[in-house]
């Protein structure tokens, strides 16, 4: 019932309230011989009071006025006039008005308070989110900035001689810090794309191999020391997805592994196609998550409590946004015997390379070239003799 009046238009509210009054009046009119016209007033009043629970002030007031007129016109003798002969009836009608009005006004005051409370709650929730965001961002921004300032100060010192090895180390730290800042910007922009609801996916055909290997290459230096096992189902078809978004999702999951597992741990990445969905899992043999963490992991700004820093709490919610934009799902569970496992499932359109036998034929005809199809699709067989097919083709 809470706040339901926010969602109904004024017109609908007025219509429903007046119809209820008419309905009750009709029932009373049919049974007037049994109940007497004084109790009709109470019944109508009760109706108006009930309406005031659900609706805002104007529909309630209109129902009150309507019911008063109906009562006067149809029930107070003389019938079918608004004329009142009896002073008792006049007093009753007056009291009727006062009570209906009071109940309407009281209701509207309660509504107003409820609304304020709701807005206040909303605002404090938003403020809390903003505070978390700004705390997290300023921490994430200031740490690398502090590194850059400190390292360059060191390098700029005139009277202190720094060993060549340390100089290189400082420069390296500046570079790492800068790329960390850049990644934060990427994350913020991606989060904004998800949050704005303007995320548009641009699906195109891509190879699953590339989808998995590209993030691994991007994280090459961070992954040094980790054991990375990649297992892509043989005969994997090409799939139609937004490469950029899903590659970024795999990247974020992998980057998480870098941040939250020990350097010597094993990360295994699997990709398969079940006839309908592309399934990518990224698992590790680390510590896994507690029940509480599993529940909250995909919440914006949530960061698990570990010593190693470097997260904004945005990475996983971006993954969720990107995968859901593909009508897919992402989940996390604890792996057996230990560690955590993330699974992305995305329904995809696919094509097998073999499906292209026909196409290849067309292409050959188009180019007016001769090709042996069996050779085209036997990639491992490298001919030792000179390829006669390429000789008579015109480029």
């Amino acid at each position: 019932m809470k706040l339901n009046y926010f969602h109904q238009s004024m017109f609908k509210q007025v219509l429903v309230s007046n119809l209820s009054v008419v309905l009750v009046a009709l029932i009373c009119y049919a049974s007037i011989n049994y109940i007497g016209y004084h109790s009709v007033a109470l019944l109508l009043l009760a109706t108006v009071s009930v309406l005031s629970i659900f609706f805002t002030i104007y529909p309630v007031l209109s129902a009150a006025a309507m019911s008063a007129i109906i009562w006067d016109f149809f029930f107070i003798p003389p019938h079918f006039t608004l004329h009142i002969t009896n002073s008792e009836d006049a007093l009753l009608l007056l009291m009727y008005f006062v009570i209906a009005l009071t109940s309407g006004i009281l209701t509207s005051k309660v509504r107003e308070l409820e609304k304020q409370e709701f807005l206040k709650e909303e605002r404090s929730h938003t403020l809390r989110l903003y505070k978390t965001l700004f705390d997290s961002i300023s921490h994430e921004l200031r740490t690398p900035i502090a590194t850059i300032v400190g390292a360059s100060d060191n390098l700029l010192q005139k009277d202190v001689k720094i060993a060549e090895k340390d100089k290189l180390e400082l420069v390296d730290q500046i570079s790492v810090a800068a790329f960390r800042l850049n990644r934060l910007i990427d994350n913020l922009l991606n989060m904004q794309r998800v949050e704005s609801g303007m995320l548009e996916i641009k699906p195109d055909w891509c190879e699953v191999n590339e989808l998995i290997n590209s993030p691994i290459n991007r994280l090459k230096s961070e992954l040094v020391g980790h054991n990375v096992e990649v297992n892509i189902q043989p005969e994997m078809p090409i799939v139609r997805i937004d490469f950029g978004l899903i590659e970024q999702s795999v990247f974020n999951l992998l980057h998480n592994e870098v941040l939250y597992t020990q350097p010597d741990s094993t990360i295994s990445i699997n990709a398969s196609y079940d006839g309908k969905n592309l399934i990518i899992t990224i698992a590790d043999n680390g510590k896994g998550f507690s029940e509480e963490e599993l529940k909250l992991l995909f919440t914006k700004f949530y960061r698990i409590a570990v010593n190693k820093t470097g997260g904004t709490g945005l990475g996983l919610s971006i993954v969720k946004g990107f995968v859901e934009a593909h009508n897919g799902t992402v989940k996390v569970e604890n792996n057996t015997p230990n560690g955590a496992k993330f699974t992305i499932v995305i329904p995809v359109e696919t094509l097998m390379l073999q499906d292209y036998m026909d196409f290849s034929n067309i292409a050959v005809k188009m180019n007016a070239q001769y090709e042996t199809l069996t050779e085209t699709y036997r990639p491992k067989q490298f001919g030792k003799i000179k390829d006669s097919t390429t000789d008579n083709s015109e480029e």
Partner: protein
Amino acid sequence: MNILIIDDEVQIQKLLEITLNNNDYHTLIASTAKEGISTAVIHPPDLIVLDLGLPDEDGQSVLIKLREWYLGAIIILSVRSSEEDIIRALDNGANDYLTKPFRTGELLARIRTALRQTQLNPTVQKLEFDNLSIDLTSRTVTLDNESLKLTATEYSLLTLLAKNDGKVLTHQYILKQIWGPGYTQQSQYLRVFVGQLRKKIEPNPNNPKFILTESGIGYRFCTKGEE
């Protein structure tokens, strides 16, 4: 070699100037589109490094204006990293596109490649890369001195990429060149044939060293000795 830098950020100007001068390039600097175009007219450089976010005019339109007469190499250096911007710049005639922040080593490699392309000898008969060689006159491809059996489409694709060694070719451009203008939306053809070609020429097709993917944009054939 003269390189013209068109970028309004003083820090970037300084960084590029130091980097390029230390690598024996002579630099010219322009902070606005207008200044950049007039400098290019007065002292035609061998290569232009162009920023897209200029104060007086959008870099894409500067690119289009330059390409009306300028035949040298143009490398875009921009903070704009969306696929649309990159594809548009390449279609507008940029030789290459690098997003900020960039690695100076990467920039220098791209500059060398772009300069090489614009000075390419059109009568070249043989392209060689590590253990792969393509003889354009006899239309044969050899890998580790063994002749490779390629279909005509695979051969066209390989030579198109290899002739543009180091340069990103957009999906649309490749489809148009190999299959014709009616096929520019059929990117699955390209995926399939690149997959086939990789299986034939790459030592490890999952981690290619010759045909590199520029995700969402196109393919780049590896640069000699710089992979």
